């Protein structure tokens, strides 16, 4: 590839041809503001907030979509470029509702940051805020189109990374909004509820539906026994909300904060993740023995499950019948835990702290009431939990919480369950257990490096009792679809496949701290691997509380009781049924 040299702000820089002006400037350490640009998406060039001036032609160029050319002389901070950027931001602000103080994204809004950085204190334009009604049909995500700046990041993400295209631009001119077709509720269409759109939205136009109020209500109700579970990835992401670096492990502070908030029992979803491995692993063995359908597909990611139900109904028999850890936990909280403690399950209120917005959808699925009650009562994202912690004034970053541990019975974890929170982790955890259960040998090398990392589809092989087991792990739904298409075309064959809807897995979930990008997500994953590395117990089948659960309650994996409480079934979903339903109303 040829190289080109250009001058930006009087400094020469040499870059490969095909480099954008924005990238060339960043190489020089010159920061140009952006809004519609996102490093993980194709460039779009709609907001013109990254305008720079070409001194030769006098033209203003959107630096994110303009390629650097040989001999270019560019000014980022000429009066003209600065005024243009400022005017473009002012135009956005003139039609933006002035609701910053009460907005979900107050403090994490990119538009707010840019307005602040450009020093905009007055807008010399007629102010005419957009006034589109909010779309609050849950259970996962709400939209406030008035706050939308039409940057199209969500539209591109949903198409390019997820291959779903649930959202697109609707109408024209001032009436333009981003919506689903016919404004159909996301739960009824092909949307996976993954919430990735919310993670790339620069403003508060797409956010999770909050359940904080009902959790407070339960905590304040003396007749309720409130049990909380926290997903593995939260341990390495919550700290970001309090200024800690991405990947900081805050397990002890997390547990201490939850106790301070008043939860009666603080348990860990990791416990249920170990249980998932026991059930899912045994299901895989069972499929081998009985000749049932292979490959087995993981089912712990509710975004992926819904995607599969919409797009690959023929694969539903391949989907593991094991529930997700969240739902296994909750079903047990209202049966096993209730029995052990003598608390009436009717009085138990189950809260799940999740990195995920699809988990909110999952908890509302009609079949998720095997305990005889609604298994999971509320799901809070990492961001929502951080709000609660801030609200009561817990000083998280300086919290003395050494040796704070999860409660007994459903609180211990293995290292294997912790890495559930990143792509490849479920597979790695499963291999550790399946290998040892089948061979009765100790697995020497616990790390399966082949399934780690950000490649779209990763594969590994393992010899078990002279049989080669082929596995794969994929993340991001477009990657998943590509892998499945390859399998269906007969170009690849596996026995077991892990699928995570969000790029990089749960550390990149739709409910995680903002802002985020691939670099941050990988640091979070490193945090999880470091917990696994330092754990004494690193295999799911060695989790003592899981062993106790089988000894005293479930008998053995795949037992009748295990099937009743820990397994589920799936249904084909047709996007267009929603159209017929809408008509019928």
């Amino acid at each position: 590839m040829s190289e080109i040299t250009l001058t930006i702000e009087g400094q020469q820089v040499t870059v490969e041809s095909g480099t954008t002006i924005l990238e060339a400037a960043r190489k020089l350490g010159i920061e140009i503001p952006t809004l519609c640009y996102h490093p993980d998406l194709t460039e779009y060039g709609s907001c013109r907030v990254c305008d720079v001036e070409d001194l030769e032609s006098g033209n203003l160029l959107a630096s994110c979509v303009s390629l650097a050319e040989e001999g270019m002389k560019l000014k980022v901070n000429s009066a003209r470029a600065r005024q243009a950027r400022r005017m473009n931001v002012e135009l956005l602000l003139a039609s933006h509702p002035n609701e910053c103080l009460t907005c979900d994204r107050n403090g994490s809004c990119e538009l707010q940051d840019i307005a602040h950085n450009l020093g905009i204190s007055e807008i010399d334009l007629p102010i005419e805020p957009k006034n589109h009604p909010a779309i609050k049909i849950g259970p996962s995500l709400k939209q406030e189109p008035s706050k939308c700046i039409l940057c199209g990041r969500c539209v591109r993400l949903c198409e390019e990374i997820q291959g779903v295209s649930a959202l697109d631009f609707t109408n024209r001119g001032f009436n333009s909004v981003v919506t689903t077709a016919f404004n159909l509720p996301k739960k009824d269409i092909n949307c996976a509820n993954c919430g990735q759109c919310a993670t790339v939205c620069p403003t508060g136009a797409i956010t999770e539906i909050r359940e904080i109020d009902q959790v407070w209500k339960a905590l304040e109700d003396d007749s309720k026994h409130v049990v909380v579970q926290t997903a593995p990835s939260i341990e390495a992401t919550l700290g970001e909300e309090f200024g800690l670096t991405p990947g900081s492990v805050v397990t002890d502070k997390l547990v201490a904060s939850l106790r301070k908030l008043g939860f009666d029992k603080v348990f860990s979803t990791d416990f249920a993740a170990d249980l998932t491995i026991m059930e899912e692993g045994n299901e895989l063995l069972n499929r081998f023995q009985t000749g049932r359908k292979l490959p087995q597909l993981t089912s712990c990611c509710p975004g992926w499950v819904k995607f599969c139900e919409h797009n690959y109904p023929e694969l539903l028999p391949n989907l593991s019948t094991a529930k997700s850890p969240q739902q296994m936990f909750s079903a047990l909280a209202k049966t096993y835990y209730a029995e052990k403690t003598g608390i009436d399950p009717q009085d138990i209120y189950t809260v799940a702290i999740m990195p995920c917005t699809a988990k909110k959808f999952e908890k509302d699925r009609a079949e998720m009431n095997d305990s005889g009650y609604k298994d999971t009562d509320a799901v809070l994202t990492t961001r929502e939990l951080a709000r609660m912690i801030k609200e009561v004034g817990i000083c998280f970053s300086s919290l003395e919480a050494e040796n704070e541990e999860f409660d007994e019975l459903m609180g211990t974890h293995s290292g294997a369950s912790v890495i559930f929170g990143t792509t490849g982790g479920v597979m790695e955890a499963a291999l550790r257990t399946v290998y040892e259960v089948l061979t009765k040998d100790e697995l020497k090398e616990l790390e399966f490096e082949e399934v780690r990392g950000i490649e779209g589809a990763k594969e590994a092989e393992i010899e078990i009792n002279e049989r080669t087991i082929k596995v794969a792990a994929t993340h991001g739904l477009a990657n998943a679809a590509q892998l499945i298409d390859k399998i269906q075309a007969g170009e690849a064959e596996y026995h077991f496949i892990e699928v995570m809807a969000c790029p990089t897995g749960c550390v990149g979930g739709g409910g995680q701290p903002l802002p985020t990008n691939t670099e941050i997500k990988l640091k979070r994953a490193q945090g999880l691997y470091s917990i696994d590395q330092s754990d004494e117990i690193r295999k799911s089948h060695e989790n003592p509380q899981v062993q106790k659960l089988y000894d005293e309650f479930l008998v053995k994996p795949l037992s009748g009781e295990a099937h009743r409480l820990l397994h589920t079934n799936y249904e084909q979903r047709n996007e267009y049924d929603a159209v017929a339903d809408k008509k019928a109303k």
Partner: protein
Amino acid sequence: MNCTCEENREKYFAPLKEILKQYEGTQKDLIPVLQNSQEEYGYLPAEVLAEIAAGLNLPFSRVYGVVTFYSQFHLEPRGENIIRICMGTACHVRGGTKILEKFKKELDIEANETTEDLKFTMESVACIGACGLAPVIMVNDNTHGRLVPDDVPEIITQYA
């Protein structure tokens, strides 16, 4: 579509299948497919758009986005007769608004709405290029010019 049985469904979608066949299922043909479908069905019902999305292998949201972008496409049923009332400069000066008001009153609908019996859809449009006849309207392909409000009831009777 109010039918429930499969046979009716097939019958309903048969013309659409024909249209889609002509365009070999390519995405770039979305607009002609929409135009022909609207010609066939009178408007673009949600279930027709869903079929088009599936037939052209396009996201449903994309098809909906295109339909809502162009004013030529309609998501609601349209009347048998389309009344276009000119609001251009010449018509405005010569009392176009009064004509529009009279139509609103007689048909009991607002601009860009359709009567309940699906007889009339009324649109206010910019110049239709017949300023010499101002104030002027078009009903379907016929022009009615130099109108006064009292002419309106008779025009409606002509088409009812």
